[in-house]
Structures are given as structure tokens and as C-alpha cells.
């Protein structure tokens, strides 16, 4: 639920966790990011940075410049002036990311896990079975059939938690147990009802359903998309996956390697909550891509 009164929880001497609710709920997350945008805009003296997540914002502040109580009341006043959720709009760029589903890279990673850690069923088979799908083609069709909302960023630089905006495309998946010790950079993971692109070679627990040659984080800043920032995505952005074949995958990989790959992003649409709710109402929930 979304709390009537948000909670302001102290996190030591220089952090506040502002909890707006306690569930995985798109509206709540939208509220989190809209409020974050408002707070940033307000440029409150003493506020250092914000870490919005699914249902909460951790606020980093300088206690020498602003007290807990003052910061709380200032943020609360912005929260109270937010207006109705229905009226909210957010400029939300959309990133188009090519994916080779059921690819060679993650298959090798799974095989390695089976050989070294423990036998487990092939990840895509788990998703197909658990979600009652026809096969890999439908898995790809459904996973690539929705825009995803970047609900949060964190844990690892550039790691974005993506939730499906089309509820008909929300899949579920268990996590690896025990977790993998490594995951290939670019792996498309699915865990719970969240999907992600692994920004680097890291340990991981999400099921692996595909792979993209396109980096979402680049500390070398070698590609044009990372000229300003190391991480591609921000909360409130949207992602759409595009299935590609091996040939196109190889081509894109060669462009990434050559350093002239151009990320595909469109940055001009405002996401409207009211329109989203209306759109949800038009969907036939029995239909599947």
C-alpha cells in the first residue's frame, strides 16, 4: 500500500530513508521518482543526493547544513504539494536494446554452473514451464513485448531493476540457489518479476534468458552514449528489448568493439499516469503476445 503519511527513518547521522509504501507497485514507484525529481529541482541546501528505489528514497544530507527535522519538513511539504498521482507526468526516454534470446553466452555460463556448482534445469526452460509458455519463441515474444520501467538502480553500478509496463508480459522466475559466482556482462536476467541487464561480469542470481552485446555501463566511457555518464539508465527511463538473430548480434558486437556503436534511445515522450491507467483498462488480460 501507499502510506497516508510517508515514514522518515533515520539512517545514522547523514541519511534518511523515506518510505512511501511497502509494496511492489508501479504507481508507488512512479510517486517515488516524481517526488525525487521534485526534490532535486528544489535544490535544498544540505541535501547531497537521493537514492530512490521501489518504494522508498534514501536521502543523503549534510547535517552541518540542515537538520533532520528541517529536511523532513521540507521534503514533506514537497510531497504534500505533489498533487494527485493521476495528474503526474514524467519525461521518460526509451532505450531500445537488442537481445539474442537463448544465446550461446548464457548457455555456456549455465553449463559452467552445472559442471562446477550444481546441476540445474536450463534457465529458459524454467521460465517456459513456470509461466506456461509455448516455447522459447513465446518467451522472447513476451519478454520483448512490453516496455519496461526502470524502477530502481543500484546494487552494482549501472544495474537497473526493470518492471514490465504491460502486465500481460510480467513473468515470474525463481533465483539461482546458490547464486552464480559469475555472470557474463550483458546477460538478460529474470528473477522474481524483475528483469535486468547485467552491467558487468558479476555474481548473480537471476535466471539467464538472453544476452545483449550492448553495454549498459561503461567505465571506460569508450562509447558515445557514455560520454557524460557511466551508466545508461536512470529510474523513470524505459527499456524495450528487441529480439535479434545471431548475425545482427555479431554485427552489433563488432560495432561495440570498434567503439562506434550508437545506442538507440528516443527521448521526447512524457509518461502520463492517467493515460497509463486508462491504457491498462483497455487491455484484454487474457491475451498474450
Amino acid at each position, binding site marked *: 500500500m501507499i502510506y497516508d503519511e510517508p515514514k522518515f527513518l533515520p539512517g545514522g547521522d547523514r541519511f534518511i530513508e523515506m518510505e512511501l509504501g511497502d509494496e511492489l507497485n508501479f504507481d508507488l514507484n512512479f510517486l517515488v521518482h516524481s517526488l525525487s525529481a521534485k526534490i532535486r529541482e528544489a535544490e535544498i541546501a544540505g541535501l547531497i543526493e537521493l537514492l530512490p528505489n521501489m518504494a522508498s528514497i534514501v536521502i543523503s544530507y549534510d547535517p552541518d547544513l540542515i537538520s533532520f527535522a528541517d529536511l523532513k519538513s521540507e521534503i514533506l511539504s514537497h510531497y504534500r504539494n505533489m498533487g494527485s498521482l493521476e495528474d503526474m*507526468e514524467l*519525461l*521518460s*526516454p526509451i532505450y*531500445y536494446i537488442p537481445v539474442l534470446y537463448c544465446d550461446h553466452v548464457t548457455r555456456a555460463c549455465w553449463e559452467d554452473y552445472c559442471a562446477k556448482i550444481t546441476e540445474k534445469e536450463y534457465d529458459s526452460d524454467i521460465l517456459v514451464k513456470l509461466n506456461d509458455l509455448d516455447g522459447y*519463441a513465446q518467451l522472447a*515474444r513476451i519478454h*520483448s*513485448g512490453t*516496455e519496461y520501467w526502470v524502477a530502481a538502480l543500484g546494487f552494482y553500478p549501472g544495474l537497473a531493476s526493470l518492471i514490465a*509496463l*504491460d502486465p500481460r508480459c510480467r513473468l515470474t522466475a525463481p533465483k539461482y540457489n546458490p547464486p552464480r559466482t559469475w555472470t557474463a556482462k550483458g546477460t538478460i536476467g529474470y528473477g522474481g518479476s524483475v528483469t535486468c541487464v547485467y552491467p558487468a561480469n558479476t555474481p548473480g542470481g537471476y535466471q539467464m534468458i538472453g544476452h545483449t552485446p550492448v553495454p549498459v555501463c561503461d567505465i571506460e566511457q569508450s562509447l*558515445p552514449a557514455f560520454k557524460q555518464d557511466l551508466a545508461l539508465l536512470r529510474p523513470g527511463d524505459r527499456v*524495450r528489448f*528487441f*529480439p*535479434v*538473430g545471431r548475425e*545482427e548480434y555479431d*554485427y552489433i558486437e563488432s560495432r561495440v568493439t570498434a567503439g*562506434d556503436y*550508437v545506442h*538507440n534511445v*528516443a*527521448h*521526447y*515522450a*512524457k*509518461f*502520463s499516469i492517467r*493515460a*497509463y491507467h*486508462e*491504457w491498462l483498462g*483497455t487491455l*484484454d488480460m487474457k*491475451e*498474450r*503476445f
Partner: protein
Amino acid sequence: MKFDQPKYLPGGDHFILVQFGDDASIDLNFMALGLTAALKEDATKGVVDTNPSYNSLIVEYESDDISYADLKIELARLISGLGSVEDLELESRLAYLPAMYLDPWTRDCVADYSEKIAPRDYDPDFVAEVNGFEDAKQLARIHSGTEHWVVAVCSTPGLPLMRALDPRCAITSPKYNPPRTWTTLGAIGVGGLSSSIYTTPGPGGYNLIGRTPVPLWDPQQRLPVFKDRVVLLDAADRVKFVPIGEEEFEYIEARVADGSYEFNITAYQRFSVGAYKKWVASLNQDGRF
């Protein structure tokens, strides 16, 4: 060039053409579509119908309900209410349409023309060449790399006239001369500055680069998406082509045939012209998909 003041040109006794400028600058279309929306919102008495295009809007009116002079005054009032083009925000759905580029069917259509009417190269090779692309595959990549703006729906029912929103994906090509006598239904064509999809198997002049298995209009209103409408797209909608292979084409074709095809359209965005212009200015024009 955008005119300082829009021109009002009479078209007989019950049409007026409002022209915002005399070139193909996309801003002029934004203005035309802004005025379309404003007329709808205003429900101006006497206005019967509207039909936008690149730089103009044609308005049909009932002269018994409003005089030509009064209509001009009303239009001028609505246009001044639009503010500057940057302030415009337009309702804009985003339709993801599957496209098989370089498909066998349009290849046959080009070959047939070549044999019977006038010899010509395979259209995608030709278009790639005149635009300085590496090959037809890059043409496909570039054509599918942008959202296409629906400038107007026109000429034949449901036929969208579209322009690339990403200026790096603009494709220009001369049209057929003489025109084709028939065109593959669902063919994706490019000509001049525009892209289109053939909604009838009639004559045509655009270069054919691919084909979509999905219908853009349905007078029988058979598929679920056509429950409340006959034509898929409206002006100010956007289209993003999703490249598919032959297998997926056949799968979708079969679902269209059995009436179960579920269109992939999102309707929760507003297109912000101001944000669009900022985004365009931020692009590295040398980057290419």
C-alpha cells in the same frame, strides 16, 4: 519556412487550407496536429472534418453553421492558443509493428515491375546506395532504428504517411516513375522523405523495403484492436518497426488469419515537441545505427 502568420487558403465553398509554412519542417506538422487536437477539444461549431499534412491542415466546414470569415477568426484564436511549437504536447500512441525487411514478397513485386514495366534494381539496394548506406541490411537497421512519426493518415484508408523522428534515420529516395500498377499488401515503402505501409494492393510509387504481416485497417473490425476503430493509426501516433524473420512473420500471419493477433501498442505517452527538439539538438549527427 514557417510563416509568421499561418495562411488561410479557400478550397471552394466548404474547405479551408491552413498552411503554417511552405517547407517540410516537422514543426509545421506538429502545428497542424496541434490545431487538429485543439479543434477537437474546442468542438468548434461548423467544423466537419480535418485532414493534416506536412505543413498544413485542411478543414472542412459547413457554411450554414459558420462563415468563412468567422472560421478564420476561430482558427486564428485556436492557433494563438497553441503557443509556440515547443510548448506543444500531443497525445501519441506508440505502435510496435513487426516488419520483415528484405522479404521475398516485395522482392517479387519489384521483380515483376522490372520485368513488365521498366527494369530497375532491387529497391533496398537502390535506396541504400542513394543514401550512402553500406548495404540493404544497414537500410533495414536504420529504418527500424527510429520511431516514425505519423504525419497523416491519408490517400487510401489507414495508410500512414510517416517520417523518421531520429534525423539520423531520415531516408530520402526518388519515387517510381512510372508508378507500379500493383503493390504487395502490407509492403513497407520509402519515397521522398516519407515511409508508408500499403494498406491496399493498388498502385504505388514508394520503394519497397519490407513487409508487415499485420493489417493497418480492418473494415470488418475482426481483430480485437479494431473493436472500436477501423483504422489502426492516427496522425501524431508513432510507429516503431520490430525486425522479424520469416518464421515469426508466418506465426503472426497465422494469428492475424485466425483473428487472435494481439497488437502491441502503448498509449500512455504524450509527445513533447520541446523535449523532442532538445533531444534532436543533443544527437551526434554522425552516429549511425
